[in-house]
């Protein structure tokens, strides 16, 4: 069960043929899969393709109707291996995952798949996480396509083109017996747009058919001698077949322009930005009409030599817009032009940056530099608007004018640097991982600093303020593995952190199994928050939810003990900071051999709130006695040191003016978003900070007994309070 419900989106998968679909890019891909008669879909969740997985997970009914099998794979490697079903059988299969990090994991299976080739169309949908908003290392998926010879689609970022790319992708795959990768940039995944739907199709050949009539062909299996033949087949048969298909089906697009001596070659995904860049230079309109000719590579691998030569024919110079590095396409184009003896000048990373995101601004500047050198006339005009001198021109003129003296140079704007704070991502309000790291900070205060290896997941926020814990992160599930080298006798042990998501992804073997086998002496903390939380709260093996389609509730502890770990401590309430700290200290100091594993369990608060809130409100409405907990700070007791915040960083724990003229520093304050997780109080207690925190239990629909007891208490307490207040009132100033 994911963070969001996709009931509404699922209905969009049922839109009848010929009607307009309006929605997010990644949902359009999901619809396009069904329109393509896909037989099975698998994948591993992660931004920006989580929605594809989540929607399909919620769409069981419609998938069953169509006979489509959907799986939430254990890892990207599993997902890629799932495509094995398309090796011998004419079944279309699609898999999806996050960017290069997922492709890294999947590469073993992908290389095998690409070597033997496929019979049914195999589509790999990559959510490219590059540039602004990215949370991973900045690399290109392009290299994977090249090394294993898979075709790489990078369609123009509008829903129509994206849907067409999915449909074409399957056909291309089948026509060339080669897996096809579809690259979806973050913004394309999240873009809201529209396209006209076609009918969903049942797969012509089903998985059941395959099981009933199993086939095998040793020529498709990666074993000598077939493996040697595969390489030749790739070059001799599959490549030319792909080129033919791409040319005939016009997957790449040519757009005319009237400055015919120059041209732009671009990755399809950059198209909208290039058009805007041209528009800002007065050379295009809002509809893609460009005065500079364009060659749009919706297929970025393979490069179609003939098309490049056709486009360059008669041109003095062309500019290639290729995002990221290395500049694979640029090198390729140089080779093509040189081999053909074509004199057309090729510009690219000389006027555009080698590294980093190609924003509209970057591309506008690059195009401008290119034109200045090769077609300066283009920059001097702007007369061809339909109404003579249109709106566009005014807009682009003003844009140019303001660009001449950017407002960012104004002293008042420059002064913002001293006040606008960085806003790193952090743990949510009430997050159960916060107390784990508060405890770790306290344990380090007692036992000194330790080497800490981190992992991928929400828990990685520990490396940021206010916790500042952790030295490396080597990949999903590899937290424990990245402490392997520190397996030497020393007074201090290494600490590794791993999430439950990473644990099931590969950490059980790569981290735990490895540590047991090699007698690693380190401490491993497994953060078990019941979901794969960082990717949107999907269920995993150890989730506690009742999921009719999956097997859940498989405890991590059982798996670990099965793998041979002797020293295991399970803490079933991470908010118990003192216990958490004491357990960490025990693990760091015990004389027991082998890895010391602490399983820290509490439910992801984001998901818990989503689950519990409606139940609570229902109970209140039904008149049941329910207690809501919230935390607060007594401003007169708080002295404004903020030590509590340095051990928390909770969004709901903030500061405010003390309201006391004698107290200059702001005091801590808990705002109304508090979910009453208890971390504040536990930290204040465990770290012996101060008595300012209180927990308020708000009893809704109190019983008769509650009210009676309250009246009795109130009578005594109220009388005493009034007595003391009267004394203060007497001496009031």
């Amino acid at each position: 069960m994911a963070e969001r419900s996709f009931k509404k989106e699922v209905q969009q998968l049922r839109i009848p043929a010929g009607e307009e679909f309006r929605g997010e890019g990644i949902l359009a891909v999901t619809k396009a899969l069904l329109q393509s008669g896909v037989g099975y879909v698998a994948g591993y969740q992660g931004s920006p393709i989580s929605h594809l997985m989540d929607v399909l997970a919620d769409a069981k009914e419609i998938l069953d109707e169509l006979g489509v099998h959907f799986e939430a794979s254990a890892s990207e490697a599993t997902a890629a291996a799932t495509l094995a079903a398309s090796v011998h059988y004419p079944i279309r299969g699609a898999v999806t995952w996050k960017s290069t990090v997922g492709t890294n994991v999947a590469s073993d299976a992908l290389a095998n798949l690409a070597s033997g080739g496929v019979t049914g169309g195999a589509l790999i949908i990559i959510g490219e996480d590059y540039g602004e908003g990215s949370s991973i290392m900045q690399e290109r998926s392009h290299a994977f396509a090249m090394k294993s010879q898979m075709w790489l689609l990078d369609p123009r970022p509008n829903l129509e083109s994206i849907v067409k790319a999915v449909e074409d992708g399957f056909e291309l795959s089948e026509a060339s017996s080669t897996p096809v990768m579809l690259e979806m940039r973050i913004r394309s995944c999240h873009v809201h747009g529209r396209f006209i739907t076609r009918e969903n199709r049942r797969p012509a050949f089903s998985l059941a058919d395959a099981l009933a009539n199993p086939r095998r062909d040793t020529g498709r299996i990666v074993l000598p001698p077939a493996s040697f033949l595969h390489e030749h087949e790739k070059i001799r048969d599959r490549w030319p077949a792909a080129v033919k298909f791409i040319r005939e089906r016009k997957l790449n697009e040519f757009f005319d322009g009237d400055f015919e001596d120059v041209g732009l070659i671009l990755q399809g995904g950059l198209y909208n930005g290039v058009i805007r860049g041209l528009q800002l230079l007065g050379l295009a309109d809002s509809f893609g009409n460009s005065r500079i000719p364009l060659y749009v590579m919706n297929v970025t691998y393979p490069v179609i030599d003939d098309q490049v030569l056709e486009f360059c024919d008669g041109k003095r110079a062309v500019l290639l817009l290729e995002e990221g590095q290395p500049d694979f396409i640029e090198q390729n184009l140089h080779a093509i032009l040189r081999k053909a003896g074509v004199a057309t000048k090729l510009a690219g990373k000389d006027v555009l940056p080698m590294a980093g995101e190609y924003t509209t601004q970057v591309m506008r500047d690059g195009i401008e530099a290119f034109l200045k050198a090769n077609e300066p006339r283009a920059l001097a005009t702007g007369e061809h608007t339909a109404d003579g001198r249109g709106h566009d021109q005014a807009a682009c003129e003003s844009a140019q004018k303001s660009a001449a003296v950017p407002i960012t140079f104004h002293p008042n704007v420059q002064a913002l640097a001293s006040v606008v704070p960085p806003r790193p991502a952090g743990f949510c309000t009430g997050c159960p991982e916060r107390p784990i790291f508060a405890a770790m900070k306290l344990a380090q205060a007692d036992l000194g600093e330790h080497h800490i290896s981190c992992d991928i997941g929400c828990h990685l926020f520990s490396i940021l303020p206010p916790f500042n814990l952790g030295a490396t992160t080597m990949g999903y599930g590899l937290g424990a593995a990245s402490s392997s080298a520190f397996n030497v006798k020393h007074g201090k042990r290494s600490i590794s952190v791993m999430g439950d998501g990473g644990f099931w992804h590969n950490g059980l073997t790569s981290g735990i199994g490895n540590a047991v086998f090699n007698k690693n002496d380190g401490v491993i903390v497994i953060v078990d928050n019941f979901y794969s939380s960082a990717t949107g709260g999907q269920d995993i093996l150890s989730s506690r939810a009742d999921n009719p389609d999956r097997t859940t509730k498989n405890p991590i502890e059982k798996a670990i003990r099965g793998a041979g770990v002797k020293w295991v401590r399970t803490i079933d309430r991470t908010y118990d900071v003192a216990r958490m700290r004491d357990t960490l200290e025990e693990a760091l100091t015990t004389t027991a051999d082998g890895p010391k594993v602490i399983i820290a369990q509490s439910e992801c608060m984001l998901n818990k709130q989503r689950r519990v809130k409606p139940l609570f409100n229902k109970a209140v409405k039904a008149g049941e006695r329910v207690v809501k907990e919230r935390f607060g700070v007594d401003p007169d007791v708080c002295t404004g040191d903020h030590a509590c915040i340095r051990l928390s960083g909770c969004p709901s724990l903030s500061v405010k003016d003390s309201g006391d003229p004698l107290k200059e520093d702001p005091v801590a304050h808990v705002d109304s978003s508090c979910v009453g997780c208890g971390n504040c109080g536990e930290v204040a207690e465990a770290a012996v900070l101060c008595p300012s925190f209180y927990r308020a239990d708000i009893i809704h629909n109190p019983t008769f007994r509650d009210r009676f007891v309250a009246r009795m208490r109130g009578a005594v307490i109220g009388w005493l309070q009034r007595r003391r207040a009267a004394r203060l009132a007497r001496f009031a100033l």
Partner: protein
Amino acid sequence: MSQIVLHPGTPIKIAILAMGGQGGGVLADWTVEMAEAAGWWAQTTSVPGVAQRTGATIYYVELLPESAAQAAGRPPALAMMPTPGDVDLVVAAELMEAGRAMQRGLVTPDRTTLITSTHRSYAVAEKAAPGNGIADPNKVIDAGREAAKRLLCFDLQQLAERAGSVISASLFGAIAGSGALPFARDAFEETIRHGGVGVEASLRAFALGFEAAASAPAEPAPINTSRALPDVPGHAADPRVQALLDDVRRFPTAAQPLLVAGVRRLIDYQDVAYAQDYLRTLQGLRELDAKAGGDARDWALTQAAARYVAVAMSYDDVIRVADLKTRGSRFERVRSEVGAKAGQLVYTTEFMHPRLEEICGTLPAPLGRWLENSKAVGGFIRRRVEKGRRVQTGTLTWFLALYGVAGMRRFRRATLRHRIETAHLRDWLERATRIAAADYALGVEVLNCRRLIKGYSGTHDRGDKRFERLMSAADRLLGQPDAAATLRGLREAALADEEGKALDAQLAQLLRGRAAAGSPQALDTRRVAA
């Protein structure tokens, strides 16, 4: 040469800056839905990713009339991200995010309307500073006046809360009220209704945002960040308190508000006699101040002393905490803070962790000292008592226990803690007066250093240690030019971080400077600006 025709039609470009969980996506979706309902082509996109977990992110929207697309004969190719200098409307769901938009160049004087909420959601760096790390909000307003064609700023968070809704609704109202988009109020409201969730509250918040924007001044006023001082009252009911008030009135006017605050605090803390002690101490300092020419310096010494002597005398001990926790006014405050409604019961649980030191501090001084030094008994008590305790103040047993502790106020002057604090106060004031006689400004800074001592237990000890380091630095600085500014710099460094790295660095630099120059004169040039 083929003739390419460029068609008219420029999209409206909107950038929404928000933090994870603020509903920036909802606002973008509403805008798209409204535009589409009105026959526009609308595109939105974003890069939420990891920023969904409390980070900052941008949602980008472009709107183009459908008729323009029809005239052009093909669908628009709209941009996926804002281009600096090419945005018509920037909406910021928090003040510093407006600052970020300007830093990114998204706001331009010739065309951008900037709508921002003035409320602050403090970043971790601001909250975690041991002193006051809150950034100056007026820097954003100042930049906005220059950078935006039109700047609209008001507390849209507060308006949303008043309506029982969330900020996306009041922001949507502000967009409507600003007139920056070519859609009527009805179109906005219909979009909210169509959403179907929390419609009534959203519409209320929308209306408040709308009014605020529609009646916004051309030039937004700066945000008032000054801290109010109390007025000096005309009279007091009790004759003894009236006498105190009369004493206060004999002080220089500049110091009177803080003295009123001090007297109030100390009557509240102990009794009238304690406040008399306070004014007596201040009287002595005021005379020194007069001799040192305080008249010409706005009585800075008396003012600093009025604040910090009151703070020092009202040290936070167990009695004080018990007193504050058991007050009727506190019970009421908690009820209102947690939003309890009539008919609901509220019980508080306090998180206390008594230490042996606190127990000794509350005992009569000789007994406290004995216990502190007695390994056997002290250790026994430490083991038995020192652990986290959940104190349920609303139950009779715990309330009576705390009430009893609060009642020990009458014995406070005899406690060990009082002895310690009094000695500390005496030493500090002696140093301040001695130094002030020679270097007025340095004397004032010595008084201001009391700001470092706050918190309880470990936090208190750490502040105490830093305070002592500054006091010895003050002794060393005496007689040097610019000594006061140097000490102020050290104090600010002491409040900069928890570990005291900034303070260590500055003190080290101070020592190095002296060694290198061989003369104290080198100090002022070596001082690091605060």
